[in-house]
């Protein structure tokens, strides 16, 4: 069933929201990935993952985005035993394209490292 409307409003009438804001703001692709085993735990709109080497992974989209300017939010953690000694980390998007994104997982000193958890949400317009 499809409900077609432009605005949602509460009964009191003091709060409303354009449906476009909900649709545009919804996550269009997401992935929860284990870099230590190179496997996807769960995902939305991902056709495959590619393990390109230590700490670098590509996620291919089933439904392409309109361009490579989508917004990406990613976090992760590396192997638990590494955390106390080296807690700082970062995930860098090496490339963002309409059909895929490539992430590079780093330690605080800038060294590529396999993460046991990579969690990424991607917003934007689908083509």
């Amino acid at each position, binding site marked *: 069933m499809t409900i077609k409307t432009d605005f949602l409003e509460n009964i009191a009438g003091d709060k409303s929201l354009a449906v476009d804001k909900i649709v545009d703001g919804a996550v*269009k692709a997401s992935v929860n990935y284990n870099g*230590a085993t*190179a*496997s*996807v735990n769960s*995902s*939305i*709109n*991902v*056709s*495959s*993952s*590619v*393990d*390109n*080497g*230590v700490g670098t992974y*590509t996620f*291919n989209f*089933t*439904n*392409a*985005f*309109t*361009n*490579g*300017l989508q917004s990406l939010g990613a976090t992760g953690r590396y192997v638990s035993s590494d955390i106390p000694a080296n807690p700082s980390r970062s995930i860098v998007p090496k490339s963002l*394209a*309409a*059909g*895929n994104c490539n992430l590079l997982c780093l330690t605080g000193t800038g060294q590529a490292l*396999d993460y046991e958890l990579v969690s990424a949400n991607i917003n934007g317009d*689908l*083509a």
Partner: protein
Amino acid sequence: MTQLADLPLWARLEIARQTLEPVQSDYRVVFEADIDAPASVLVPEPNWMACALHGGILPPVEVYHKLEVDDEGKVLNGELQHTTPPVGPMTEEEAIEYLIQKDVPAHVWKAEKGNSTKMVICRANQLPTTRQWRDAWKIDQVMEHNNLEEAA
């Protein structure tokens, strides 16, 4: 009544995700897209594999090849993904072939000639069991040669 094929691709994927059981494939595609980089390992996504086996959800792989991208990376004809009738059920092997053509760089799988093996389809248990020396992984050309001799 709306048919699945009448819906846009993203809507078909969403329905499939809610109704189909994910299928974890045992196949892996090892490929070398860059001679200076380690071998890459492609793993099919379980929800996508379920869509491929079910049929009626994914567009023909040619659709992805027909997507036109301008100089700024913008897709100009994305509606092809939604308007092209979806393909029917695939076997797992056909799904892997589809995925190779979709997600592996074309210069790897489309090369007609070459003096080395750039891509291998294997089982997960044929990959190294640990990620030690991961950045030194390369397709074993000697093993491939031996396999060819055995096959001959």
